């Protein structure tokens, strides 16, 4: 379970900057909702700059907490072993530029992720690599079973189960199945929390021998993520299509939230990228996860300490080694007052090392436009 459980509304931070409880001068860093001078460009990503003698400025990864309240230090990322280094590929073998898996005589596409072998990775000048579209009818191997990707607009994952393997999925992605495939409920912990968070309450497992197919409800791409033993990824909720039975599934708090004042005294908590993340790992045997990206999918590999701002709702997946927190950006010249949030842009600040992937068709971040009462660890920039 991830750290930083959100504070229940009404029990969290005081109403800084609100007319009822303005932040005392010289105390506290955020001054939410109050006019602030422009932040020099060299303070980008440096967090707030409180007056001398106050609490130290929050650093990336440190929580945003009001004065006088203890920082709830985030827990370090879960201790997952780094994926073992790939052995040197023998001569004549093919190493996929997308998933890094080696194979012999792959044919037209990588058997581990379906990426075409005859196209070069498309990388833009900023470092994002576009997912090579899986060829129509390409096959992906997992164990003795295969998954065929059919279609190009809203592609279908047509899984042929061999009898020894299984897959699990959210039931509303099921498209068709043959009689030889049996389905049953996968036991999940925390049903109450999942229900409150709007996550699917039921995860379904399919086993047996035969075909079963899945698709999502929007135009996009299927992203195949082979999971090596000891590694894992975190995925934004509702993007998973299927995972192989060898893949371990868990769900963790996203730790990304902010609170606003609702009415006179009530606080409302917002989760711009959802309250939870799906976590997939491969503790004993290699696993396979298929995601559905709306629009196109792009991935970027961040170096240690390298940062990137992305829209919270555009996150597709990230490596466990990538940490993230909120980042509030205020453009220069925007009107602000003690009652107005002015103009702010909400970002997710990702910090390497590791991969970060985004989808191009994402829903806008929901921001009610009210003064912030508090948030999860965050940085801020006033231009």
């Amino acid at each position, binding site marked *: 379970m991830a750290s930083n459980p959100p504070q229940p509304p009404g029990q969290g931070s005081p109403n800084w900057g609100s007319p009822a409880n303005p932040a005392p001068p010289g105390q506290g860093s955020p001054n939410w909702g109050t006019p602030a001078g422009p932040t020099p460009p060299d303070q980008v990503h440096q967090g707030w700059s409180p007056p001398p003698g106050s609490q130290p400025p929050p650093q990336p990864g440190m929580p945003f907490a009001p004065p006088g309240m203890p920082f709830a230090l985030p827990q370090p990322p879960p201790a997952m072993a780094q994926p073992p280094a790939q052995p040197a590929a023998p001569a004549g073998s093919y190493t996929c530029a997308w998933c890094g898996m080696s194979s012999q005589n792959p044919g037209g596409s990588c058997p581990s992720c379906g990426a075409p072998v005859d196209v070069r990775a498309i990388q833009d000048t900023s470092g994002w690599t576009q997912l090579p579209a899986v060829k*129509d*009818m390409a*096959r992906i191997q997992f164990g003795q079973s*295969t998954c*065929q990707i*059919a*279609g*190009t*607009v*809203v*592609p*279908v994952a*047509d899984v*042929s189960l061999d009898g020894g393997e299984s897959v699990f999925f959210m*039931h*509303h992605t*099921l*498209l*068709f*199945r*043959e*009689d030889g495939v049996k*389905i*049953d*409920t996968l*036991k*999940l912990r925390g*049903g*109450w929390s999942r*229900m409150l968070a709007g996550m699917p*309450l*039921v995860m*379904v497992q399919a086993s047996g021998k035969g*075909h079963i*197919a899945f*698709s*999502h*409800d*929007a*135009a996009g791409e299927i992203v195949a993520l082979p999971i090596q033993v000891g590694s894992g990824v975190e995925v934004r909720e509702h993007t998973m299509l299927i995972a192989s039975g060898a893949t371990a599934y868990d769900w963790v708090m996203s730790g990304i939230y902010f609170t606003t004042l609702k009415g006179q005294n009530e606080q409302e908590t917002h989760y711009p990228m959802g309250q939870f993340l799906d976590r997939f790992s491969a503790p004993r045997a290699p696993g396979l996860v298929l995601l559905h990206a709306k629009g196109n999918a792009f991935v970027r590999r961040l170096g240690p300490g390298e940062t990137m701002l992305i829209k919270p709702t555009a996150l597709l997946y990230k490596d466990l080694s990538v940490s993230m927190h909120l980042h509030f950006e205020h453009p220069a010249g925007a009107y602000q007052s003690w009652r107005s949030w002015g103009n702010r842009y909400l970002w997710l600040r990702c910090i390497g090392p590791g991969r970060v992937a985004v989808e191009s068709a994402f829903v806008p971040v929901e921001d009610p436009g009210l003064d912030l009462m508090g948030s999860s660890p965050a940085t801020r920039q006033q231009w």
Partner: protein
Amino acid sequence: MVEAVGQRVECQWCHGQNPVDAQSCATCGAPLDVRNLVSDSGWREAPRLRDMTEFHFGSSSCQVEGELVPVAEITLSPQDGIFFEHHVMLWKDQTVPVGVMPLQGMMKRSFAGMPHIITTARGPGRIAFSRDATGELVVLPLHPSMELDAREHAFLLASHTVQYSYTRIQGMRTALFGGQGMFMDRFIAAGQPGLLILHGYGNVFERTLAAGQSILLEPGAYLYKDSSVQMTVESQKLTTGLFGGTGLHMVRMTGPGRLGMQSMYVHHATE
């Protein structure tokens, strides 16, 4: 997507005959120079119609424009007509007259959520249609005596030679959980050939079921079927202990006949 027959080539989608040098089928617009794409499980992808492909019906023609949300632009001759649901009209020549098709059972259609009004248009002139989401046009030439059922609101247009009716879905459970409501559109080519164009969301796949062969399909993914294909609902309870769980309803389609499926569908709440 082609089979040579003497000096002609046969379209594998609609079995229309075409000159050997044709790039696309004159009857349905399917490309003739690409092979069929069939999955291991036996589903064949509906042909992706090339941008600006043109095909003919009666004395009129249809040109397909666009690839994400394709437009069917109809050039009507004076002796031809078409019918459609009015909300799929994109544009038309001012001179193209439109009317209303007399329908029976208006009260039933109203209760079933089906369109109250089917609009007709006659030539000469041009009129164009499109739907509201990414998908494919599925061109289905209907030969005489062919009967085809389509999910409600899936049809884009049909030629005036096609008889239009609707059929009540048998069985209360099938009506409640089959994702179709109580009725399906039925198109019949009684005495002469006709043309039916559907819009499928996402990608469209077709499979021909042998007699007695069946498959379980998500109700929302059903797009069309030959009237000979039977449809029933099968349910499974997925429980999660204290939280009860949910019901999973799928339609069992039993052959013989063709079955069309769309990959992007509305998931109908089951409980």
